C-alpha cells in the first residue's frame, strides 16, 4: 500500500492538485491536431451554398453550371439526402438542406465537393437558385409561432410599499470560439462512415446523423478531433451530415472547413432577450413579489430553445427569496439566425435583468447594492420560485460580504494615456473620466434539468505496460478546451494510486458521456470515471496495484453515472424539482468611463465562487477568468447585429470580442462548501462566472454615468449621446 500512497502524492497530479494538461505539450508545440488540420490522401473538399435571404420560397435550383466546372465531383441538394431530411437537438425541425423554402439567412441550400476548396467555392457560387423572397418575421414581439411558454406562479400578493419596474434587452451574442467548424468524413468498407469532428456531444451528433444518412447507428462512428473552443456553439450539428453525405456519395474522404464568416452562419447563437420586470419590496428592501416577462428570440429553428426558456423561467428572479412570483418566459420562432446553447444559457439573459432591478430597488430603498442582495439572498434551506428546496450549501450573503471586503484598485490614474478608457486612441486628457463600481450575482443550474436522462459512461482499464502499472480512461466526453482530460486523469490517479494514466481519444466506441455543456462534465463524467475506477480497484482484492495486475492480468470495468433525477416543471405553475445542482458566482466590477466619449475601461473584476470542492485550482481559475471575460464581452462589445433578418457583422473585424487590453486583472476567491450529492462534493464551475460579470459591469457603468442603461452590450453612443445631464434609459430609437 505504500506504493499506492507514494505514487499518488509524489506525482502531484491527483484530485485537488494543479495537474498539468496532458494535451498542453502538443498544444504549445503546434503538434495538436485540430479538426481543421486533418488530412487524408485522396480527400476532397466540401463547400456549402447558403441562403442570402432570411425568408423565401425556392422556385428552382439549377446545379448544371456548377457541375460543368473542372474539378467538381458532386453537387447535392435536399433530394440527395439518403434518409430522414430533418435533424434537431430537441425537435427534428431543421432540414439538412433547404426544402422548397429558406427560413434564415445562411440556411444551407446545396453542397459541392471538388478537388480544391477554391474550385468548390466557385462552383457553389455558380449554382442558380431562384428565390421568391417573402416577408420575414424578424421582431420577436410580432412572432406568433411559440417554441415554449413556461410560466412560474407562486403566491398571490402583488402589492408592495416600494415598486420598481424596468424593461431590459440583451443582444445576440456569439460563442466566437477561435477554431472554426471542421470535420472529415471517411467512407468505410462496411458501407458506413467514420467522422472525425470537433463537437461537444458525439452521441447526440450520431443520433441525428444516422437517420439522415439512412444508416444504422453502428455504421456511423464518430471520433473527436481537436476542438478549438465550443461554449455551446458545437452542441448542434453544423456540417456533420453534409460531409458524410458527400463522402458516401463519392466514396472518398471529404473535408469541410468553415471560414470565420461561414462560422457565424454555421452555428446557433445566444438568444437575444426582451424582458420586462416589476419588483415589489418592503421599505427596508425585502422582496415581496417579482413579475417578469421574458421573451427569447429562438430564430428559425428550435435547437435548444425549450431548455433555454426553462432556465430563464426557473432562475428568472435570481438567487433571492421571493414569496410571490409571476414569471412568464417565452421562446419564439422568427426568421432571425437560429439561437441555442451558449455558456449559461437562459440564466445569462435573466441575470442581467434581475440584477439591474436589484440595483434599482437598492436605490429606491436607500440601501447599498450589496445590502439589498444580502437581505434577500437565498441560503441552504431556501426554496427557488419553482418550490425546489436548495438542499446544498448556498452561502450567498457571505460571498457578497467577502467580495465587498476585497481591496479596491487605486484611484483613476490620470497621466498614462494607455490606462484611460480608449487607450492610445483617446483624444482627451481624461478630464471626463469617472469611476464606477458595480456588483452582480448569478445562479446557474448544473447538469441537464427537467427530467432529462443525464448520464455519462467511463471505461477504465488497468494493466502492466513494460512492467509498470498503467491506466487507460476511455469516455465519449468532449474535451473542448475546458480541461476535462486533465480531470479524468487526476481522478484515475487518485482512485487507483497509479501515476501513469492515458486518456483515450473520445469516440462512439464507448457509451455516451452526454454533452460538454451545462458545466456538467466534471460532475457526470467525473462521477463515471470515479465509479469505474472504484470497480477496478475492487478487483485488486486489497493488493497494491502492481501486485494485483501481476496476479490477475489486465482489469477493465465500464460504469455509467447518473446524477439525482430531475423532474419537469409544471406547465401551468412552473413548480417542480427541475434542477439537480445549483451554483453561485458573484462579481464586483470597477470601471473607468469617459462620459463624453462613451468609452469604458474595466479596471478590475473580482469574483467569489463556491465550487464545492476544487479538483484542479489552476484549471478552475482559468474557467473563472474565461467565463468572466465572456460576460465582459456581452456587457460592453459583443453583439451580432441583425437588421431585417440579415447579419451585418459576421467577422472578427466587426464582431468584437475582448482583447487582452479589454480584459482586466482579476481577484478571485474560491469557496469549498461541498454538495453531498455530487462526486467529491464538487459543483460545476464553467458557467456561473459568465452570468454575474455582465450585470456587475453594467452596474459599474451606471454608477459612473448616472444613466439607466437598460440594454447590453452598452455601446459608446448609449453613453456619449445622453451625457447632457439628462437621465436617459440608454435606449436608442
Amino acid at each position, binding site marked *: 500500500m505504500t506504493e499506492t500512497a507514494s505514487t499518488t502524492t509524489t506525482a502531484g497530479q491527483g484530485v485537488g492538485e494543479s495537474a498539468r494538461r496532458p494535451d498542453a505539450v502538443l498544444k504549445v508545440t*503546434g503538434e495538436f491536431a485540430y479538426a481543421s488540420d486533418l488530412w487524408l490522401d485522396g480527400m476532397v473538399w466540401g463547400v456549402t451554398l447558403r441562403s442570402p435571404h432570411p425568408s423565401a420560397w425556392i422556385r428552382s435550383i439549377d446545379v448544371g453550371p456548377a457541375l460543368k466546372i473542372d474539378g467538381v465531383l458532386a453537387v447535392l441538394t435536399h433530394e440527395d439526402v439518403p434518409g430522414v431530411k430533418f435533424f434537431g437537438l430537441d425537435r427534428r425541425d431543421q432540414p439538412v438542406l433547404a426544402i422548397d423554402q429558406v427560413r434564415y439567412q445562411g440556411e444551407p441550400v446545396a453542397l459541392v465537393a471538388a478537388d480544391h476548396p477554391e474550385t468548390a467555392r466557385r462552383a457553389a457560387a455558380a449554382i442558380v437558385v431562384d428565390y421568391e423572397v417573402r416577408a420575414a418575421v424578424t421582431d420577436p414581439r410580432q412572432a406568433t409561432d411559440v417554441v415554449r411558454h413556461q410560466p412560474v406562479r407562486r403566491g398571490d400578493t402583488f402589492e408592495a410599499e416600494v415598486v420598481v419596474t424596468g424593461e431590459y434587452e440583451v443582444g445576440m451574442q456569439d460563442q466566437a470560439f477561435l477554431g472554426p467548424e471542421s470535420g472529415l468524413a471517411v467512407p468505410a468498407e462496411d458501407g458506413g462512415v467514420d467522422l472525425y469532428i470537433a463537437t461537444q456531444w458525439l452521441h447526440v451528433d450520431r443520433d441525428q446523423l444516422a437517420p439522415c444518412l439512412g444508416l444504422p447507428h453502428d455504421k456511423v462512428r464518430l471520433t473527436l478531433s481537436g476542438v*478549438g473552443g465550443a461554449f455551446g456553439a458545437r452542441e448542434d450539428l453544423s456540417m456533420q451530415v453534409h460531409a458524410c453525405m458527400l463522402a458516401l456519395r463519392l466514396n472518398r474522404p471529404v473535408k469541410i472547413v468553415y471560414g470565420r464568416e461561414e462560422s457565424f452562419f454555421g452555428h446557433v447563437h445566444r438568444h437575444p432577450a426582451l424582458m420586462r420586470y416589476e419588483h415589489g419590496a418592503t421599505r427596508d428592501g425585502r422582496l415581496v413579489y417579482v413579475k417578469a416577462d421574458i421573451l427569447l428570440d429562438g430564430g428559425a429553428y428550435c435547437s435548444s430553445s425549450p431548455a433555454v426558456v426553462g432556465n430563464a423561467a426557473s432562475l428568472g428572479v435570481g438567487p433571492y427569496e421571493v414569496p410571490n412570483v409571476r414569471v412568464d418566459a417565452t421562446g419564439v420562432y422568427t426568421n432571425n439566425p437560429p439561437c441555442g446553447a451558449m455558456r449559461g444559457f437562459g440564466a445569462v439573459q435573466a441575470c442581467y435583468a434581475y440584477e439591474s432591478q436589484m440595483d434599482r430597488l437598492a436605490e429606491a430603498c436607500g440601501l447599498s447594492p450589496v445590502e439589498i442582495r444580502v437581505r434577500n439572498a437565498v441560503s441552504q434551506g431556501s426554496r427557488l420560485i419553482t418550490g425546489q428546496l436548495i438542499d446544498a450549501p448556498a452561502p450567498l450573503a457571505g460571498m457578497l460580504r467577502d467580495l465587498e471586503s476585497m481591496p479596491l484598485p487605486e484611484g483613476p490614474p490620470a497621466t498614462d494615456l494607455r490606462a484611460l478608457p480608449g487607450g492610445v486612441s483617446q483624444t482627451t486628457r481624461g478630464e471626463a473620466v469617472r469611476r464606477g463600481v458595480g456588483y452582480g450575482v448569478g445562479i446557474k443550474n448544473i447538469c441537464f434539468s427537467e427530467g432529462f436522462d443525464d448520464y455519462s459512461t467511463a471505461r477504465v482499464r488497468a494493466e502492466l505496460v513494460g512492467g509498470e502499472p498503467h491506466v487507460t480512461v476511455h469516455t465519449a466526453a468532449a474535451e473542448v478546451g475546458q480541461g476535462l482530460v486533465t480531470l479524468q486523469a487526476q481522478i484515475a490517479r487518485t482512485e487507483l494510486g497509479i501515476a501513469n494514466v492515458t486518456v483515450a481519444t473520445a469516440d462512439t466506441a464507448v457509451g455516451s458521456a452526454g454533452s460538454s455543456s451545462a458545466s456538467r462534465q466534471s460532475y457526470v463524467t467525473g462521477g463515471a470515471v470515479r465509479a469505474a475506477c472504484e470497480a477496478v480497484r475492487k478487483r485488486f482484492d486489497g493488493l497494491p496495484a502492481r501486485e494485483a495486475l501481476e496476479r490477475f492480468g489486465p482489469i477493465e470495468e465500464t460504469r455509467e453515472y447518473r446524477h439525482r433525477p430531475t423532474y419537469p416543471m409544471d406547465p401551468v405553475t412552473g413548480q417542480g424539482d427541475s434542477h439537480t445542482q445549483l451554483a453561485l458566482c458573484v462579481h464586483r466590477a470597477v470601471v473607468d468611463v469617459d462620459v463624453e466619449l462613451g468609452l469604458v475601461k474595466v479596471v478590475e473584476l473580482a469574483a467569489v465562487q463556491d465550487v464545492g470542492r476544487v479538483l484542479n485550482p489552476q484549471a478552475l481559475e482559468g474557467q473563472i477568468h474565461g467565463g468572466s471575460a465572456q460576460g465582459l464581452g456581452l456587457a460592453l462589445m459583443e453583439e451580432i447585429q441583425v437588421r431585417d433578418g440579415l447579419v451585418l457583422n459576421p467577422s472578427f473585424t466587426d464582431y468584437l470580442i475582448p482583447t487582452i487590453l479589454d480584459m482586466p486583472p482579476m481577484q478571485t476567491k474560491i469557496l469549498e462548501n461541498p454538495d453531498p450529492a455530487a462526486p467529491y462534493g464538487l459543483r460545476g464551475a464553467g458557467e456561473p462566472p459568465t452570468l454575474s460579470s455582465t450585470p456587475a459591469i453594467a452596474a459599474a457603468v451606471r454608477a459612473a454615468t448616472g444613466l439607466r442603461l437598460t440594454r447590453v452590450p452598452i455601446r459608446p453612443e448609449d453613453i456619449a449621446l445622453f451625457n447632457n445631464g439628462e437621465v436617459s434609459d440608454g435606449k436608442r430609437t
Partner: protein
Amino acid sequence: MPRITVTVDGITYEEDVEPRLLLVHLLRDRLGKTGTPVGCDTSNCGACTVMLDGKSVKSCSVLAVQADGGDVVTIEGLGADGSMHPMQRAFHEEHALQCGYCTPGMVMAAIDLLRDDPDPSEETIREGLEGNLCRCTGYCNIVSAVRRGAQEMGQAVSKQ
C-alpha cells in the same frame, strides 16, 4: 507561377506559388505546417502569427511571394533539439491555454515583444499582445506566462 525560395523551421523549400497565395496557406496546405492555425481570415485574431526574418507577422496578411528569400519560424520550429522554448514551457506551466487554438500565435507574439523589452511590465505585455485574441482564458494566465517566459529567457541569456 512565381518560384520562391523560403526557409521554414530550418528547411529550405523551393515552391511554385500563385501570386495571391497567402503565407499561411503555403505553410499549412503545401508544407504541412498545420501547427499554425487560421482563426479569422481577417487578420484580427493573430492565431496564425509566425516569425518572418525575426519579426512576428500574421501569416494570413503576408503573401507567400513576400516571404521569398525569407526565414520563417513557426511554432513547430521554436524548440531546439527536441526541447521546448522557454516561452512554450511557460505557457504550459502557467496554464495559459485551454483549447490552445490561439497558443501558437500568442507564443510567437510574446517572443517578439521581448525583443523590444526583455523584462516587460504587465502593461507592456498587454499592449504587445493586443493583436492576438484568446476566447478561453480571459488572458490572466497568458500575462503570467509571458512574464515567466521572459524571466527564464533572461536567465538563459545571462548564463551564456
